[in-house]
């Protein structure tokens, strides 16, 4: 006996649906098969864990200079895994809290910049005509600036400080997201499903954010991980220049800056915060590569 007709028809449809719905899972699966992705994910999880648990993991306060056994430039030991600095503070604790502030600035700045950039890019791409032309002109001239210089210009007026560094980084992230999301919009907006939902009477906001945004997402995810990398680097550079956190609040860049004048006495002062920063950047970079390969499996194989 052959199967009823409806089963024979519904089987392929069901499979098609499933493969579409599991695109997200397929991407995650591809990332976990990629050694770079595994290193990146586990490394980042460890670093984020350390940053969140900084208050519990670190034995000493990052700013305390007087506790039993406090001394200047103690070499790394079990008690002080990263040693102590010129003011007798525990460098392990300072590094963890520096990592925390670095991650917090970067995450909030990138999400803020990405939200504004992507919405602006979608609107520009969808609206077309003069709206698009004006917006893209502005974005192009913003993109012409090297990020660090643009951030410096913003900090001049806002004044140095953590919050303002975040604002500067967010601002500097807008143009790249805007360009990319506009390009995505242009390639999506003339597809049939957009016409179909238009015909069903959906408004522009619903079409943009309900339908197109979902399909335009993958390349933007790669940009998010790239932007995180840039944001960590930029915030470290700015705090290295002394434009970020005010002392005694620790930051990775600030630690490296003050380690510079103590290189003769304490190699560990520069080594551990530096290694932490380098590891964070490496993980974020691997992450960007892995995400890129996961959402676009053909990207890596072309060359």
């Amino acid at each position, binding site marked *: 006996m052959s199967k009823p007709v409806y089963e024979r028809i519904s089987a392929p449809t069901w499979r098609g649906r499933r493969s579409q719905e599991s695109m997200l899972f397929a991407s995650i699966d591809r990332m976990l098969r990629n050694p770079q992705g595994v290193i990146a994910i586990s490394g980042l999880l460890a670093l984020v864990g350390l940053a969140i648990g900084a208050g519990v993991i670190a034995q000493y306060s990052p700013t305390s200079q007087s506790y039993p056994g406090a001394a200047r430039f103690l070499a790394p030991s079990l008690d002080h895994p990263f040693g102590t600095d010129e003011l007798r503070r525990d460098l392990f604790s300072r590094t963890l809290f520096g990592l925390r502030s670095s991650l917090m600035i970067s995450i909030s700045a990138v999400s803020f910049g990405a939200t504004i950039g992507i919405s602006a890019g979608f609107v520009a791409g969808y609206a077309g005509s003069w709206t698009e032309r004006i917006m893209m002109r502005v974005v192009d*001239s*913003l993109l*012409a*600036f*090297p*990020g*660090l*210089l*643009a951030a*410096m*210009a*913003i*900090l*001049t*007026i*806002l*004044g*140095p400080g953590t919050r303002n560094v975040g604002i500067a980084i967010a601002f500097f992230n807008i143009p790249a997201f805007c360009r990319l999301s506009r390009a995505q919009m242009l390639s999506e907006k003339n597809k049939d499903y957009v016409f179909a939902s238009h015909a069903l009477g959906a408004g522009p906001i619903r079409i943009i954010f309900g339908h197109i945004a979902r399909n335009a997402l993958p390349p933007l995810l790669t940009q998010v991980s790239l932007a995180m990398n840039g944001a960590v*680097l930029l915030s*470290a*550079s700015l705090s*290295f*220049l*002394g*434009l970020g956190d005010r002392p005694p609040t620790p930051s990775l*860049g600030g630690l*490296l*800056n003050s*380690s*510079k004048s103590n*290189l*003769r006495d304490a*190699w560990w002062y*520069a080594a551990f915060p*530096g290694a932490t*920063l*380098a*590891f964070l*950047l*490496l993980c974020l*970079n691997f992450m960007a590569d892995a995400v890129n390969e996961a959402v676009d499996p053909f990207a890596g194989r072309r*060359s």
Partner: protein
Amino acid sequence: MLLLSSICVFLVLRLVPGDPADALAGQDATPERVAEVRVQLGLDRPVPEQYVAWLGDLVHGDMGKSTRNGLPVSQLLKLSMPSTLELAFVAYMIALSIGIPLGVMAGANPRSFWDWVLSGYTLVTIGIPSFLSGILLLWLFGVILGWFPISGRVAFSADPLSSLRHLALPALALGAGLAAVLARYTRTAVAEVMGHDYIRTAKAKGLSQRVVVIRHALRNSLIPIVTIAALQAGGVMAGAVVIEQVFTRPGMGRLVVEAIQNRDYLVVQSALIVLVSIFVMVNLVADIAYGFLDPRVRRR
């Protein structure tokens, strides 16, 4: 383009909330005092008018005076620019002379020894920002080995050898990171061209690999390489500003950082305009270079 970016620098500095007059007058200044300072700086006038006045002065070489110590900004820049420019120039040369050959070697021979060198090199450099590698070099060659001076700058005209010794470490720190990026783009560009038919023809004619790569492949992959190299000029400028702080060189970096801390916005504005115009000019040269590299561009 230059005009557009000058407008941008100006607007960014004006539109961001915060009032330079407030900062200058001091924390417990009376509102009258703040208003007075504002009139002095010309901040009470409409923004377009301020811009035109500033631009007019800029064209005449007058960049106003530092609000902090009253010195003319042009003089401050004249003192600090040579240090930054020589650092940027040497670092740029290092980046080009490491990045392009390495990229060409790796691109022409995928999965060869040089390709592995490039992969290893990029792996090391992507995690290490230039100021970190600067500290590393400072520690290794300055403190432990004592081969190079750890801070300061000597003018090239005063003592060329000592000047270069002071430049070596910062330029290497800055150039090494940029070289990795450049090498990766060069590799991709060359590798793509190497797959074309005319390369196979050249090889079939019996030309040596060397001639094929240098005369045939490199020439056609130069356009993307030049584009990236020109864009990196901005990175060099920004990087030099940071690296100067690592090696305590008296340059624009220190000038700008101090100016930001004191909200001396005229100094920052002028310094940024100078850096951005150099960047724009390098990119203009690159645009002109396209015409020479690829005659097809000229016809358009």
